C-alpha cells in the first residue's frame, strides 16, 4: 500500500476544513472468486466535525463495514480513509492500534464492558492503554453529564443495560477522540434507556463538541442525528443534513 502523499492531505484539509473523517473510492471486498462479496463499493463520504452523523441502511447493506473501515478496525481493499487529516488506510496493525487509542472511541450494541473491571476502570481503560493520565475535570464533567457518579465502583454485572451503555459512552468520551463511533448503541435497550442514551450522544455533540458517528437501522434513533448517510448495497445512497 502506498504511503500518504502530503499534497493530498493538504488539499483535503483545505477542501473540507470541517471534515473529521472522509473516504474516497472506499471499496471493501471479502473472499475471492465465486464467494467474492462486495461489502462496500467506491464510497465517497464526509463526516463533518462537531456533528452527530447517523449511518443508516438495511441489514447487510455494508454500514458496519463502513464503520470498521472508518475506525481503523478493518483495512480497505482499495480507496482511502482519512481521519483527523491523517490517511489511515495504509497503516500497519501497530500504527493503527496507536492511532485508534488517540483518535477513536467506541460504543457498541452489546456494551462490551470488561466484566472483571469496575465501571471506573472500564472508563479509564483507553487512557491506561495509551499511557495517558486522565484529565480530572473532563472525567468529572463526563461522569456528571452521564449521571453515573454513584456507579463507578460497580462491576458491569451489577448494572442495568442502560447504565452499562452510559459507562460505555463515558469510556468512549474520556479520551476526547476525534471520532466516537456508536454501533447500534440502543439495540439492546428498552425505549426509555434508548432515549436516554441517544440524548446523551446528542448532548456530547452539542455541549462537549464531540463528533459522533452512529450506525443504526432504527429511524427513531437516526432522528436524533443532525447529519444522515444512507447506505444501500454497499453504496452511498444519500448523504446530507437531517431536514
Amino acid at each position: 500500500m502506498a504511503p500518504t502523499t502530503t499534497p493530498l492531505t493538504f488539499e483535503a484539509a483545505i477542501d473540507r476544513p470541517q471534515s473529521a473523517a472522509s473516504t474516497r473510492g472506499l471499496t471493501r471486498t471479502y473472499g475471492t472468486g465465486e464467494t467474492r462479496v462486495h461489502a462496500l463499493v467506491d464510497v465517497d463520504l464526509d463526516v463533518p466535525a462537531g456533528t452527530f452523523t447517523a449511518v443508516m441502511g438495511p441489514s447487510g447493506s455494508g454500514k458496519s463495514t463502513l464503520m470498521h473501515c472508518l475506525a481503523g478496525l478493518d483495512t480497505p481493499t482499495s480507496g482511502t480513509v482519512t481521519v483527523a487529516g491523517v490517511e489511515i488506510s495504509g497503516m500497519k496493525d501497530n500504527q493503527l492500534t496507536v492511532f485508534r487509542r488517540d483518535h477513536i472511541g467506541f460504543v457498541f450494541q452489546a456494551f462490551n464492558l470488561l466484566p472483571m473491571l469496575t465501571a471506573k476502570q472500564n472508563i479509564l481503560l483507553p487512557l491506561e492503554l495509551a499511557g495517558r493520565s486522565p484529565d480530572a475535570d473532563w472525567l468529572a464533567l463526563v461522569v456528571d453529564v452521564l449521571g453515573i457518579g454513584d456507579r463507578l465502583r460497580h462491576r458491569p454485572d451489577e448494572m442495568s443495560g442502560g447504565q452499562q451503555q452510559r459507562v460505555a459512552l463515558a469510556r468512549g468520551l474520556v479520551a476526547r477522540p476525534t471520532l466516537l463511533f456508536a454501533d447500534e448503541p440502543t439495540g439492546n435497550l428498552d425505549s426509555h434507556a434508548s432515549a436516554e442514551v441517544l440524548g446523551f450522544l446528542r448532548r456530547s455533540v452539542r455541549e462537549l463538541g464531540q463528533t459522533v458517528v452512529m450506525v443504526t437501522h432504527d429511524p427513531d434513533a437516526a432522528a436524533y442525528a443532525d447529519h444522515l448517510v444512507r447506505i444501500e448495497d454497499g453504496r452511498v445512497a444519500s448523504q446530507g443534513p437531517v431536514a
Partner: protein
Amino acid sequence: MREVTLASVRVYARRYVAAVVAVTLAVAFIVTTNALTSATKAGLVADLGASFAGAEVVVTGAGSVGNAARLVDTADAAGGRAAVNALTWTSASVDGHVIADDAEIGTIASGAATGLRWQTLVDGAYPGPGEVAVDEQEATARGIAVGDTVTLGSGKDALELAVSGTVDSSTGPHGASAYVTWPDFAVVGSTGIVHDVVARGVSVDDLDAALPQRYGVQPVDDFLATAQKEMTRGVDVIAVMLLVFASIALFVSVLVIANTFTVLLAQRQRDFALLRCVGATRRQVLRAVRLEALLVGAGSATLGLLVGTLFGHGLVAAASALFPAVPVGAVELSPVWLGGGWLLGVLVTLSASLLPARRGSRVAPLAALRPDHAVVVRSRAGRGRIALAALALWVGSALLWLSITSHQLAPMLAGGFVSFVGILLLGPIVVPLAIRLVGVVLGRVAGTAGRLAVANAVRNPRRTAATTASLLVGVTLITGMVVGMATIRTNVDQEMDQQYPLDLTLTGSQVLDGGLADDVRAIAGVEAVQPVGGGTVELRGKGLDLGATTVLAPPSDVRGIVRGDHAFVHPGPDEVYLPWEAYNASGYSEGMTVAAVVDGEKTVLKARVADGIGDVAVVAPETLDGLVTSTAERALWIRVDDGADAEDVTGALAALARATDTEASGGFPDRAWVDLQLDVMLGAVVAMLAVGVVIAVVGVGSTLGLSVLERTREHALLRALGLTRRRLRFTLSAEAVLLAGVAGVLGAALGTVYAWIGVEAVVGEAIGQVSLVVPWAQVVLVAVAAAVAGLLAGVLPSRRAATVSPAAGLAAD
C-alpha cells in the same frame, strides 16, 4: 441424541486435548510400568536359568564350605558329578598392588565336572587349579589381561593365581567378579557362603537317599520355578511402587479432566439450552454428555495403550543397548495390565466428568432465548466448601501430629493426603489471594497489560484454583522429595565424614618422590593435596603385632583436606591412632598400651581408634620426633572435588601408585557410590512425578486456551481500544505465568512443610536426631521451573488470542 453427541465430539475434539493428554499419559505410564517389569522379570529369569546351565539336581542347605565339600564327595560316590556355587569376598592384588579390598570371588566348575560350568568363555581358556577366570567387564574395568598374576587374600591364606581367561558371567545369583576352581576356593573362601550344590549324572532320589534329611534335594526345574517366583515377587514390589506414581498421575488427571469438562460444558450452556428448547429432557442432555465423556475416555485410554507399548519397548531397547550389564529380557505385556490400565483410564475420565456434567446440563431452556450469550461463570467458595476444608485441615493436621509423635508412616500418609485435600478445597480463596498479591507487583512493572492479566487470572476463582491444583500436586510432591532427600543426604554426608575422613591417600613404605604431590595435583578432579611426614616404626601390643608400620604425623592444619571433625587430626602427646581393622583382627581395645620400637628402643603409647585412615598409624609430630631421628614425606592426603568422577580419579591415582610403588587408598569411591545411589533415587522419583507435572501443565495450557475462546469479544474490544497485538499476547502469557508461578511458590512452600513432617515422623526415627535441610537453590528452581512451564503452556493460547481481529468480535450477532 446420539448424532448430537457424535457431532459434539467431532466439533469440540480439539478442546478435549488436555483430557486426552492426561488420560493417555496416565494409561501409558501404567503400560510402560508393565513393559519394564515384564522385561526385568524375563531378564532375571533368563539370568537365573543361565546360572544353572548343565545342572540336573540342586541341593540346598549346605551352609558352610566344609559341608559343601562333603556334599560333592557324596554326589561323586553316588555316581554323579557335582559342583559348588559359592561366593566369598577377599582382597585382590595385581603385581603386589591391591586393586580391590573386597573382590567378589565365585566358583567355576572344572575337571570332571565341567558339564556344570555355566560361565561362557570370552578370551583365553577356562581355569584349572591355580588359575582364575575374570568376568569380562571386570577385567576391562580393572585393566586385567590374560596371563596376569592375581593374588587373592593375604597372609598365609593368600593364593597366587594366573589369569587363564575372561568369561561372560551375566548377573545371575551366582555372578561374581572372578571365578576360581573348587579346590582353590576352599583355600581363599573358607569363610564364604554357599549358594547351592549342583549335580548331574545322578538321580534326585539316589542323592536324597545318600544325604541327611536336612538338605533339600530338588530337580533343577522345580528349584528354578520356586526361585523365579521369589525373584518376580521382588520385581512386583517395584511394580507396586511404580503404580503409586501412576496413581499420582491419575489423580492429577482427574483434576485436569474435571476442570476441562467444567470449562467446556459451561461454554456450551447455550447449546444445551437449545437442546432443551427443542424438546430434550434434562436426562437426555446429561446422558449425551456422559456418552461424550465415555467416548473421550475410551479413545484416550486406547491411545494410552499404544503410546505406553511403544514407549515401554523403546525404553527397554534403550536400556539393554546402553547398559548391557542390566538384566533385561523381552517385553511381555499382560492382558490384565493392559485391560486394567484401559479400564482405569475410562473410569477416571467418566468419574472426573460426573460432577461437571451434572452441573453443565442443569440449564433452563429459556437460557437459549436470552440475547446475551456471553459466558458468565460466577464461582465463589461456598460456605460448605470452607467448612469441609477446615474439617479436612483439622483432621489432617491431627493425623500429621500423631505421626510426628508416634513416628509412624501410616498416619503421615493419611494426614498428608487429607490435609492436602483441605488445601485444594481452600484453593478458590487462597490462590486468587496469592495471585492478587503477586499482581500488585506485576501491575506496577507491566502496567495495564499486567493488571489485566491479574484481573483475568482471578475473575473465576474456582476455575483458577482448579487449574493450579493439578500443578500444585506435582510441585508439592517434587519439593517434598527434594527437601527430604537433601535432609537425608546431609545426614548421610555427616555419617560418611566420620567413616571416610580422607577422600584418597597415597602412602609409601619409603620416602615419597618429591614431584609426586604435583603429579597428583595434576589429576583432574583433585582439589587439594597435603603431604604428610612420617617414618617407619614397629608397633607391638598385647596380642597385637603390626610389625613395621608407616607412622604419620599430620600437620596441625588439615582443614580442606580432612572431612568432618576427627580426633586423629590432633593426637595427644602419648597417643597413637590405629586403624579400626587392627583392633578387629586382634581383639585389642582402645586405651590399651602399644609399644613403639625403633632400633630396639621402646616407647609406650596409648592406643586410639581412627576410621578410614588407611593402613597406617597416626601420632602427633612431637611424638614422631621422639620416635625416629628424621621424618620425611611418606604420604599424600588428597581431597577430591565433590562432583568428580570416582572411577577416573581413583584410576589415575592407582596408575600413579603402581608406577611409584606406593599404595593408593581412601573412602572417596564408597562416598561417591552412596552419593550416586541417592542421586539416582531422587532423579528417578522426580522423573516419575514429572509425568504428573506434564499433565498439569497441559491442563493449564488447555484451560487458558478455552478461556481465550470465551474471551474473543473482550480481546477484540481491547484491540479496538488500543491494546497492541504484542501486549495482548503478553497479557495472556502473564496470566499463565501467574497461575503456574503461584502454584510453584505455594507448592514449594507446602512441599517443604510436608518434607519437615516426613523427616520428623519417619527419617527421624531411623537416623536419630535430624534437622531439616532446605536446599534453597533447588526449591527456588522447582518454583521457577513451574512458572516457566506456565509460560510454555501459555504460548499457544496467547498466540491464538492475539490473532483475533479488532473488528471480529464486536458485531452484535
